[in-house]
């Protein structure tokens, strides 16, 4: 490991000044020397084992070849030999590599067995991939699931170079996944539309999220901290913009966090029973719009992958048909059914926002109660 770093540093001196340039797989050990996950550290060790075996074979083969290029050149006046067969040699370089491979397969098999050991999890989290965000649902024995969406938090201004890019550019979300330290967490991974893949390099978990399938993966993180990853299966236009952010915290902090999440859900439900002011709805709607609509419909409602909202017949037409599109989606297109993703008050807020922003100015105010009665038909 140290050698690999030193070698590359020598070859790439001008770049080495930037300490951020990582050239190898995460080691599975934190900077403070704490093992992050045992499995991650083991996979890193396996990776380096195969790497060094390859280096050794490469040095041998390339060494012989380079010596031959130097010594057996016509310009040195050598006469070519005419030997062209040797059964013993052929058998040797068939059999010896085979045994090297067997030696590699043994540790690979034992690590793979651990990867597949999903038993005895203390916490189960359903991870669902959507175009282009993740939904996390903490499965609770009492049915009191915590559930939320996790969207990219990096601003469009940073992406389009009109603002300075932050430290965690493209790797930050509005609501991270939070898990307790030293707890076996089982992830149940699926998708609602196309195939995604959930990956956090530092904890060495990657599993495809496939609609109609539930894949399993697990981790036990031993070091508190923030770990970041990305979707790793091409899932459409904004594949590069759906990161994963995992916060690993102490059990106490985790309990506080779950309590506050439950409290927030209750507050949302209470909000749905109230009449909100236009300003409140517009402010809330703007946030929802930026997180859930902007990628397809544009920052100014000008459209893009999706239709324009500014001046659109739907956003300026009847409220029910507008709600129909938002709540039920449009079959056969990328427009999802947001009724299942957003709370009633959020649907109300974003509908109000779309009807009054971008110069639409319909003056319509949609309340959560309207959404409830729409859903009830």
């Amino acid at each position, binding site marked *: 490991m140290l050698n690999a770093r030193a070698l590359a540093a020598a070859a790439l001196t001008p770049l080495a000044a930037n300490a951020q*340039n*990582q050239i190898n797989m995460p080691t599975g050990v934190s900077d403070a020397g704490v093992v992050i996950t045992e499995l991650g550290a083991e996979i890193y060790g396996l990776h380096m084992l195969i790497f060094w075996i390859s280096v050794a074979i490469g040095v041998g083969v390339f060494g012989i070849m380079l010596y031959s290029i130097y010594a057996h050149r016509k310009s040195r006046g050598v006469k070519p030999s005419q030997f062209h067969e040797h059964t013993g040699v052929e058998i040797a370089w068939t059999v010896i590599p085979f045994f090297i491979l067997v030696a590699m397969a043994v540790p690979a098999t034992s690590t793979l067995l651990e990867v597949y050991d999903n038993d005895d999890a203390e916490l189960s989290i359903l991870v669902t991939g959507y175009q282009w965000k993740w939904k996390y649902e903490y499965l609770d024995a009492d049915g009191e699931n915590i559930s939320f969406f996790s969207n990219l938090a990096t601003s469009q201004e940073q992406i389009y170079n009109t603002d300075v890019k932050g430290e965690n550019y493209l790797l930050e979300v509005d609501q991270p996944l939070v898990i307790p330290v030293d707890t076996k967490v089982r992830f149940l991974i699926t998708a609602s539309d196309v195939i995604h893949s959930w990956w956090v390099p530092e904890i060495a978990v990657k599993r495809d999220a496939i609609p109609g399938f539930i894949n399993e993966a697990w981790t036990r993180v031993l070091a508190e901290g923030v770990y970041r*990853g990305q979707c790793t299966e*091409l899932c459409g236009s904004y594949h590069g913009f759906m990161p994963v952010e995992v916060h690993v915290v102490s059990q106490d902090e985790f309990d506080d966090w779950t309590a506050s999440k439950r409290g927030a859900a209750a507050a949302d439900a209470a909000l749905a029973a109230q009449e909100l002011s236009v300003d409140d709805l517009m402010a809330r709607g703007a946030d929802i719009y930026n997180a859930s609509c902007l990628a397809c419909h544009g920052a100014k409602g000008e459209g893009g992958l999706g239709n324009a909202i500014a001046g659109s017949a739907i956003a300026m037409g009847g409220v029910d048909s507008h709600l129909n599109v938002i709540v039920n989606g449009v079959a056969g297109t990328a427009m999802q059914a947001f009724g299942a993703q957003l709370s009633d008050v959020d649907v109300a807020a974003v509908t109000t926002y779309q009807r009054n922003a971008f110069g639409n100015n319909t003056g319509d105010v949609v309340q959560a109660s309207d959404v409830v009665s729409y859903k009830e038909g």
Partner: protein
Amino acid sequence: MGDHHHGPAKGLSRWLYTTNHKDIGTMYLWFSFAMFLLGGAFAMIIRAELFQPGMQLVEPGFFNQMTTLHGLIMVFGAIMPSFVGLANWLIPMMIGAPDMALPRMNNWSFWILPPAFLMLASTLLMEGGAPAFGWTFYAPLSTTYAPPSVTFFIFAIHILGVSSIMGSINIIATVMNMRAPGMSYMKMPLFVWTWLITAFLLVAVMPVLAGAVTMMLMDIHFGTSFFSAAGGGDPVLFQHIFWFFGHPEVYIIILPAFGVISQIIPAFSRKPLFGYASMVYATAAIAFLSFIVWAHHMYTVGMPLAGELFFMYATMLIAVPTGVKVFNWVTTMWRGAMTFETPMLFSIGFLVLFTIGGFTGLMLSIAPADFQYHDTYFVVAHFHYVMVAGAVFSMTAAIYFWLPKWTGRMYNETMGKVHFWVSFIGFNITFFPQHFVGLAGMPRRIPDYALQFADFNMMSSIGAFIYGASQLLFLYNVIAAITSGKRVTDEKIWDGAEGLEWTLPSPPPYHTFEVPPTIEEQPAH
């Protein structure tokens, strides 16, 4: 066809109606080079966007169209047709046959290609844009969520498949029936052997690809649910079918390259190929293994443990016959009397870089480690080491090696060497750093990336521009050689080259071996 001694027809009709293997070979080669430049132009757009973090030149959706078309055009438009062109030119000349066995079908299998690629490229101008789901076109992104142009893409793939199958049948028929008397199978040049095996792979797997795209067509237009979980179908089934085609496809691309290298290294080492028989057996072993390793592209889909283990062990086994090939080539060089003209330089470049690609392939075969490598730039680096430094370098070596024979004119050797070194350096600047960003966590097929990947991406883009520009030098060198290169008249242009094609005049007449040659005791290899 009463007069067997006529020359080519004049004008366009020569090319439209030709049944001559040399003309058809030439058309395949020029067509594939045009596609190489087009696919390369798309790669330049990709690398320009990735030069810095942030979105600068193109939108994410268009970026995906570029990665998709780059892959499709390079695999189906550049590499595969180029080797078919090489087969057309060389197989009859190497086995002492007057032409291919099925010359009219040969004409047809070439002429359906340009319309297919025109149709594929025209999807860029269609509403909703070109296919943007990657060259692997995983469902349901390529079905329910695809742009309307996907139907044209499916049609284009069908035509390419038909073309490949016809080309393969032709090669099999030619090699089996038209060898000169006395040329037994084990006397055939290795290029012929590797193509024979490749042709069987093509006949076996192109129909599978056709099946996959037909099921997509049914899902999109006729209400079936082969790949849609909502209708009781299975998106993972698509991947199994695709990679049952896709993995043999990798060897379809690389086996003829092995054949080329096995012709060139002995020629410039002035020494017979070491281990001819073991090379043939290794090629056959690789072809067999290629059918039982497909799911190593799918380690992260959630296969059962037993499946995961099977595909890991089978994949690791491929290292054995591939290693045999590399050892044989190096031993061929050992105690030869080497010179380093351009074809030899590209062959040695192939040997070094392909072996590096083989090592990363071995790393990727280790399933638990692949959970970290899968779908990152580490994979991108790996397959460009085997596709570009493997297939494209060997193809380039082949052009420099046989061009003087085909045209009777020599290319500019200095320019050829410059082309090699600029390509070699440019290639490594492009793809070596991609190993680093991949391991550090950069997924493939993203139009924008986190800041820690910035420096290596910039390096990679600079390398890509260098590598891309060096191909224009190649184009110039070839055109200059054809139009005004120094004439060569020797049959044996390279003093160490062996084989029947080197017994023909340079350039060879329009029809060759109308009377089969006699194969002497000396082995053809």
